[in-house]
């Protein structure tokens, strides 16, 4: 055994270790305090009954989880979350692919169109939600005025238990389409042209090419986009906060919003933390499935 100082010197030849420590201290401190510690501490908090202020913290074991898992609120929020996720996925992914295919067809003005479709992605969700809320106003909102002109009796969107979630989904699709498009565009451009040429020599038409070359080769990309949309739906918050506040009758009370309410309105940090861990578990499972699938997909291509 070398004495510590000697060992240090041996490691630290040419000041490499010192430099590494200096370079990493900020990152380690911030990740430690705001990522690693919180992840573990949420687990501990989920076993407590605590309002975050009083010195009284009661250890209650898994009763927060038990109460949540038997409560209407949690299951309702999961249903709402999956509803949102389903709506956004089935609309924004095919539409994103369609636009990407169009843009990839050698059309003029590709950059112009891309900018149009991508603008909603970089727009703040809060601002977008405020605009859409007014556009969906039952009386004089632009959407209903147009629908009335073409003879459709439009619903009172955000006040209707049936139509509130579709309205939130609409905003989600509007914000996400451009992202899916850009990712698909990149994937389309990575498909070697040779594949198409060979198939064309064999007499395949455009639809066949699309179905048998483009779609299968894009499968890994599609999978990633589906998973990301699912994960993002668990984080849905801004739209709900601005547009519906979880209503009407809890139809848009998604899990991200329920967590916020428990923590910062009811000050029930124990339950809120339990929700956080339930969320984390679900997202971990989704990520794991994606990981397995992406390996499978990669093998498929080879």
């Amino acid at each position, binding site marked *: 055994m070398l004495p510590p100082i000697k060992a240090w010197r041996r490691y630290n030849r040419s000041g490499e270790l010192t*430099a*590494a*420590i*200096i*370079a*990493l201290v*900020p*990152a*380690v401190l*911030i990740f430690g*305090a*705001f*990522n*690693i*510690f*919180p*992840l573990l501490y949420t687990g501990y908090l989920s076993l407590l009954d605590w309002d975050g202020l009083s010195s009284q913290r009661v250890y209650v074991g898994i009763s927060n989880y038990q109460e949540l898992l038997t409560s209407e609120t949690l299951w309702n929020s999961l249903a709402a979350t999956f509803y949102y996720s389903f709506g956004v996925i089935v609309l924004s992914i095919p539409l994103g692919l369609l*636009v990407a295919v169009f*843009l990839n*067809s*050698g*059309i003029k*003005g590709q950059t112009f*169109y*891309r900018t149009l*479709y*991508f*603008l909603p992605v*970089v*727009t*703040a969700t*809060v601002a977008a939600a*405020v*605009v859409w809320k007014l556009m969906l106003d039952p009386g004089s*909102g*632009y959407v209903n*005025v147009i629908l009335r002109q073409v003879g459709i009796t439009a619903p009172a969107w955000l006040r209707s238990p049936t139509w509130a979630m579709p309205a939130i989904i609409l905003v989600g699709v*509007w914000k996400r389409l451009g992202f899916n498009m*850009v990712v698909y*565009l*990149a994937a389309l*451009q*990575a498909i070697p*042209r*040779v594949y198409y040429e060979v198939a064309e020599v064999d007499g395949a038409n*455009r639809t066949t090419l699309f179905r048998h070359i483009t779609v299968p080769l894009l499968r*890994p*990309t599609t999978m*990633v986009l589906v998973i*990301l949309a699912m994960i993002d739906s668990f*984080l849905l*918050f*801004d739209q709900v906060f*601005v547009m519906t506040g979880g209503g009407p009758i809890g139809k848009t009370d998604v899990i991200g919003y329920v*967590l*916020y309410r428990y*923590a910062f309105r009811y000050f029930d940090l124990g339950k809120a933390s339990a929700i*956080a861990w339930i*969320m984390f578990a679900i997202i971990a499972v989704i*990520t794991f499935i994606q990981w397995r699938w992406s390996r499978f997909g990669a093998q498929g291509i080879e």
Partner: protein
Amino acid sequence: MIVELTLSRIRLKLGQIARPKIVPRKLARFPVHIALLVGGIIMILPFLWMLTTSLKPSSLMYSGPYIIPTHFEWVNYLEALRAAPFTRYYLNSIIMTAGITIGQVLFSSLAAYAFARLRFPGRDLLFLIFLGTMMIPIHVTLIPSFLVVKWLGWIDTYQALIVPRLVSAFGIFLLRQYYLSIPKELDEAALIDGASRLTVWWRIIIPLSRPALATLAIFSFLFAWNDFLWPLVVTNNPDMRTVQLGLAMFQGKYGTQWTLLMAGTVAATVPAIIAFLIGQRKFIQGITTTGIKG
């Protein structure tokens, strides 16, 4: 954050494929243009409507909506300013966004340098842990992060808005990939000439990685400017509200005064749109080109 994650993933994937020159298949041009235009108009309709409404005389608020501005009541913007301290919100947002963007570029770059160039025990494990934090959604760590900020006495301060987001796994990952592509001979030569490791970082790596730093800066800017949940949680004082937060509160209070509300929304949206339009090439290049070499 999730978006950032895909970008890096896609980039990785594409990096492995030698990309041929794009030779597009030709579709019938005209119908495609029509379809793209109709779709595009729907996409920007909310922007147009927002702008038009913000310039409407309030007497026309409930008469039939129109989409092309015909009236220009700029006074609506002044009235919105009078109704809520938007100047203050702006100042807060600017300070927060600038702090986060500068911090991201600086600290992510430092950490990325260590991971790309320096040898030290536990390097790969630490890198893996950092990457793993990308998978943790903000909601999961929200409550303890808030408690940490409270224990530090940072509620209603700029530190609370900035410090937790000074560095990101995404930034470290993005820059590390780029640094690995810079020839090692360059820094080795400098080391032989007697430069210290950190001098190498500052004098060689930083200047050579400007394109990657610019990409990270744009991502950070947009993320910070548009963020809502974290500022909502760590501020109570109306004087500490950011633009997005102020807008959401304004909406709750003046929800019926559409013209003012839309003036506020335009103000909250414009900086991000300008930043995107300026940095668009970099931003989308980050996704559409192979690797991050701009």
